[in-house]
């Protein structure tokens, strides 16, 4: 009833090609972003910021990055953790060695460095496909982890191999409270998500999808695999690198290579699988799912007033989390984004399904 596009005529190409052709969708997203910027700061506490919103937003950026490579271009990668580490250490070194650099530039630099490394490790994708490529990217993960643990220059010769970032400022305003950090991360996320959405709708995105669906056919119609695959690697690594820098600077503040180990790669991969391959929305839903469900399960017994030993709570958390993942994958193998799409379809007809 509410969600109906009757009467919304598209009178120009622009209207037809809009990101959200349905007015209700458009208003919903605008309202959501406005809510994030204006309403959330009115009620959110520190815990909500630092443990719920900020990690979900940062990992959403990483998930968007991997989704571009795996979801849109079909190149399976297990190296996300390594590329996040490249971003984090690149940002750390730039901020350390040129302390006057604007923080936005620091994060862009992190993205660019990750992009270069991503291009390098993307080269094998021209020769190998599928699981074999996954193994090659896994190698990059281990190599990068090794490099940041062993090459002392990256960590500024810290005796423990752990690095810490100093004061973060944007145009003279220190980003020191969780609320400011949240607004900054939210702004980055909105800009990057919008850019990604537009990229995948444009020429580049269509190239990627053509390669994903059938690379030989794509080559025959004139798409250069070199160009398409490497651009996907570049853009994907750029996003993941920025996510890594944000994770290190604004989430952890101090980190060691272990923060970007292979588990991080798997975490990001699971996000896009559960959220939905080849959708931007899925990246957000998947990130929220993977980050929040364990925390929620861990606190559930306390909220319900059930007293239980700490170990039992942790074990139940693991078991239920696994069960929920299996449930969602059986219920909808195409991910949470697909559930959302089905819901929208039904809503168009509601309350009069034929």
């Amino acid at each position: 009833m509410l969600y109906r596009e009757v009467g919304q005529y598209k009178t120009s190409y622009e209207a037809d090609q809009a990101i959200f052709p349905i007015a209700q969708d458009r208003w919903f997203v605008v309202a959501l972003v406005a809510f994030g910027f204006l309403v959330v700061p009115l009620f959110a506490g520190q815990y909500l910021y630092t443990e719920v919103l900020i990690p979900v937003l940062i990992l959403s950026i990483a998930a968007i990055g991997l989704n571009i490579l795996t979801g849109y271009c079909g190149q399976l990668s297990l190296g996300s953790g390594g590329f996040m580490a490249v971003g984090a250490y690149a940002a750390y070194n730039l901020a350390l060695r040129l302390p006057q650099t604007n923080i936005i530039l620091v994060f862009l630099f992190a993205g660019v460095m990750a992009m270069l490394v991503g291009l390098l490790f993307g080269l094998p994708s021209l020769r190998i496909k599928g699981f074999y490529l996954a193994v090659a990217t896994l190698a990059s993960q281990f190599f990068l982890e090794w490099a940041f643990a062993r090459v002392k220059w990256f960590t500024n010769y810290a005796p423990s191999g752990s690095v810490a970032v100093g004061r973060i400022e944007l145009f003279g305003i220190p980003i020191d409270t969780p609320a400011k950090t949240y607004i900054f991360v939210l702004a980055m996320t909105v800009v990057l998500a919008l850019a990604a959405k537009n990229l995948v709708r444009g020429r580049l995105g269509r190239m990627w999808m053509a390669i994903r669906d059938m690379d030989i056919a794509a080559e025959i119609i004139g798409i250069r695999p070199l160009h398409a695959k490497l651009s996907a690697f570049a853009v994907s690594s750029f996003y993941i690198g920025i996510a890594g820098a944000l994770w290190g600077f604004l989430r952890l503040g101090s980190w060691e290579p272990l923060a970007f180990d292979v588990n991080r790669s798997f975490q990001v991969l699971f996000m896009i699988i559960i959220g939905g391959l080849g959708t931007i929305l899925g990246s957000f839903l998947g990130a929220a799912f993977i980050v929040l469900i364990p925390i929620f399960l861990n606190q559930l017994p306390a909220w319900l007033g059930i007293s239980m030993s700490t170990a039992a709570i942790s074990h139940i958390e693991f078991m239920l989390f696994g069960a929920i993942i299996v449930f969602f994958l059986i219920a909808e193998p195409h991910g949470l984004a697909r559930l959302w799409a089905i819901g929208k379809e039904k809503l168009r007809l509601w309350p009069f399904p034929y």
Partner: protein
Amino acid sequence: MTGKTKHAGIALAALLGGLAMAAPALAQNEQFIPMLVYRTGAYAPNGVPFANGLADYYNLVNERDGGINGVKIVFEECDTGYATDRGVECYERLKGKGPTGAAYVIPLSTGITFALTEKAPTDKIPIISMGYGRSESRDGSVFQWNFPLLGTYWTAADIILHFIADQERGWDKMKGKRIALVYHDSPYGKEPIALLQKRAQMHGFETMFLPVTHPGVEQKATWLQIRQNRPDYVLLWGWGVMNSTAIKEAVAVGYPREKMYGVWWSGAEQDVRPAEEGAKGYNSAALQHTAGQFQLHQDLKKYLYDKGKGFAAKWDETGEILFIRGLINAMLGVEAIRTAQEKFGKKPMTGEQVRWGLENLNITAERLKQLGFENELQPIKVSCEDHEGTRVGRIQTWDGKKWNVSSDWITSDDSVIKPMVKEAAAKYAAEKNIRPGCLVTN
């Protein structure tokens, strides 16, 4: 909505509702202490007894004395699984509870300690990292909120090297010796490297650094290298299953256990028992105390275990190393709160006030006796320059059944360590733009 989407919708609503829910309020005359523990995961065998020791001591203070000067201790556990991000989440979850917030935090993980070090000055919650954490955090003028009480890894490494030098009859005999460090490849394991390098340079011995990746069950390659190179001594900086694996591998390659020295986190019953007879002769540094029940255990038995309120599964477990370490850690925290109460009044303390209490902590031999820790600990006196409080330790040796102390009290050489602390702390201060100075609390 279909059934599927409805279920998803309910789950989502429950999730959001739950996360927005506030914690129930606590009564006013209570001191809240968060407990970041790990009762699950790869490091649980070592995490469980420590957590039990902490909990039992807090309960004992409540049961026996009615709290700290009448202020009841309330604690809540959160399982970190030794993972840094989960540890930070636990900390954020618990730090605001109670009438005055968290009194202090005990991370029991070098990684979590590093992460919380960044948060402590803004949250105003002190960190007690007893026997771990950043070695340079001993400098209280830069690390105002960190308290690596009883000794840092530099102290630990120096104590072990002192003992080895004694065995060799003097530092000059160390020339040309080869010492290998088998370490957990994390900030924890890397901490002693700086001191070993410094000492190697001073005395002309050779060092060999062999990292083991988390969790440390795969060490074949490491020990093959040891078999090939035959170092004179092996130092072990492991945690959890890595320790017992290392000892078993040493047995497998025939490296003499008598030449192996673990840090105080590599010297618990859990580390040597899996290797059975093979562990005989293995040494480790003792964080002052060793295994075995002592005076305090009479109270533990009377007030907790006879009433079935103890956390440990068996009474015998209360005499184990890591359980005792938990007791000691809790005792130091409680005494810091008591010290703070003397200045600020007998009421629940804020993190800032507890920090003052920690910085002015002075536990004399007499007080240790009163507390029931006689012969377990040496007197501790903390100050702004010295957040460690004391720098003594002993070496203990496993005889196949129990730990025996095999050395006198050894004090680490501050003429070597202090300049290193100064230098590292100054570097940290420069990186983070901190102006060093002692914090004044009124």
